[in-house]
């Protein structure tokens, strides 16, 4: 049984993305004449243009949960109530954003904000991928792009804690994390996730909160996706962050596999950088309740 899980994990990790070479250790000398000094500055950073979205959001009630990793193992995180998008943001919805914010199209996107596979299956700047539904989750979007989209609709990305809190709900219970059937179901969905990102959202049943597609189609960006792997104290840098990931793995085998699905998500998030774009990583937005 364990072997299957390990195989599954390596599949997921390897399918995500080959890590690009260590980033720009030495860059090309700056050859252009553009804005060599303050007087001739031509950089005009652009604001995100707001768009209207009628996407349905559902209310998530306040509560608390035990995070899988991060902080003390006994720690309980309190979650305030918030609104969450019913489904991941779709291709069609993302297109609306691009029309209002053409700097975020695949030909205009700034390289600091997304790697070269950004929206790679889109036929052109404003033409959706041929083989994916307009109502399928938008994928191959970076964290920066997801954040910009959220800003344009007056929302934000969820925190890891918020996402995980909602992810613990089954169809009937708000916290099903103790239910082996629930865990098995999630792991099954993960195992058959391949290619599902091209299919429309909202095909299955909603969970307890009325939220769809938390598992089985895509992985989702969270605002603090990369901050959870740090162990206590000041880290010596990214290497030890990654080591933290494997420590988490070791710790897991010492306990039980109940949280294995959470572990997979944490491992996935830990393998990402904010400019990565991956064909099965998308996002959904949340909003504070005021």
């Amino acid at each position, binding site marked *: 049984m364990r072997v299957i899980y390990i195989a599954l994990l390596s599949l997921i990790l390897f399918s995500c993305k080959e890590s690009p070479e260590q980033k*720009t250790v*030495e860059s*090309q000398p700056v050859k252009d004449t553009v*804005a060599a*000094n303050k007087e001739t500055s031509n950089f005009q950073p652009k604001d995100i243009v707001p768009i209207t979205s009628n996407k349905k959001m559902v209310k998530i009630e306040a509560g608390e949960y035990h995070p899988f990793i991060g902080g003390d193992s006994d720690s309980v995180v309190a979650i305030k109530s918030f609104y969450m998008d019913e489904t991941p943001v779709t291709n069609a919805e993302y297109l609306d954003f691009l029309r209002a914010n053409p700097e975020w199209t695949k030909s205009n996107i*700034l390289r600091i904000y997304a790697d070269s596979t950004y929206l790679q299956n889109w036929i052109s700047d404003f033409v959706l991928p041929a083989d994916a539904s307009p109502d399928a989750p938008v994928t191959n979007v970076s964290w920066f792009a997801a954040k910009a989209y959220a800003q344009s609709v007056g929302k934000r990305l969820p925190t890891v804690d918020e996402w995980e809190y909602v992810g613990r709900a089954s169809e009937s219970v708000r916290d099903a994390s103790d239910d082996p059937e629930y865990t098995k179901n999630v792991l099954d969905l993960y195992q058959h996730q391949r290619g599902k990102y091209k299919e429309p959202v909202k095909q299955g049943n909603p969970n307890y909160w009325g939220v769809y597609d938390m598992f089985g189609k895509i992985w989702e960006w969270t605002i603090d996706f990369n901050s959870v792997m740090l162990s206590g104290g000041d880290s010596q840098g990214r290497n030890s962050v990654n080591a933290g990931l494997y420590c988490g793995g070791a710790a897991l085998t010492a306990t039980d596999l109940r949280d294995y699905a959470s572990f997979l998500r944490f491992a996935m998030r830990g393998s990402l950088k904010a400019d990565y774009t991956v064909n099965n990583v998308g996002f959904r937005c949340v909003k504070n309740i005021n």
Partner: protein
Amino acid sequence: MKNIFFSLVALLIISSCQEKQMQQQPEEQQNLSSQSIFNINSTWETATGEKIKLADLQGDVLAVTMVYTSCKVSCPRLAFDMKELEKQVEKEKRGNVKYVFISIDPENDTPEKMQNFLRSYKLNGDQWIFLRSNEDNTRELANVLTVRYKELSPMELSHSNIISVFSKNGVLAYQKEGLSTDLNETAKAIEKQL
């Protein structure tokens, strides 16, 4: 009248430059300005309370690191590393380098605290800059710098220790990770950009 004239000129300059950028688009990967941190539109507050954009730092080579003022463990060492770094850059070239601390605890790090931080490490002069913004902008910049951080408790943050060197046009040229390691390579990376 004068204003209109200036805005027209500005517009002209902007649009002509934009054209230039467009032409550069095809060789996507070499489009350096697209990788520039000066594209980032967030507003930052300095230790003297001045509001600036990152693009205002254009024209100098930047050595950037992320810290917070109440940090007791790694930040003092990072501050000493930055100071040591300045010493290792050739004297006659030092005028064109700025050393920038970015607060990862913006709520707590008021301009006064940022000023005290600089003062306590004797980081005097225009080349020493301390910036804070809001949480959102800080997270975005941290992700550009590939710095990870997490609040462990209200008074304690865990974070990566990275010094990033940026060209005069804001393009990442070099990154050094870890504390009190050899700064010679970092100094060389700075000199190379001058």
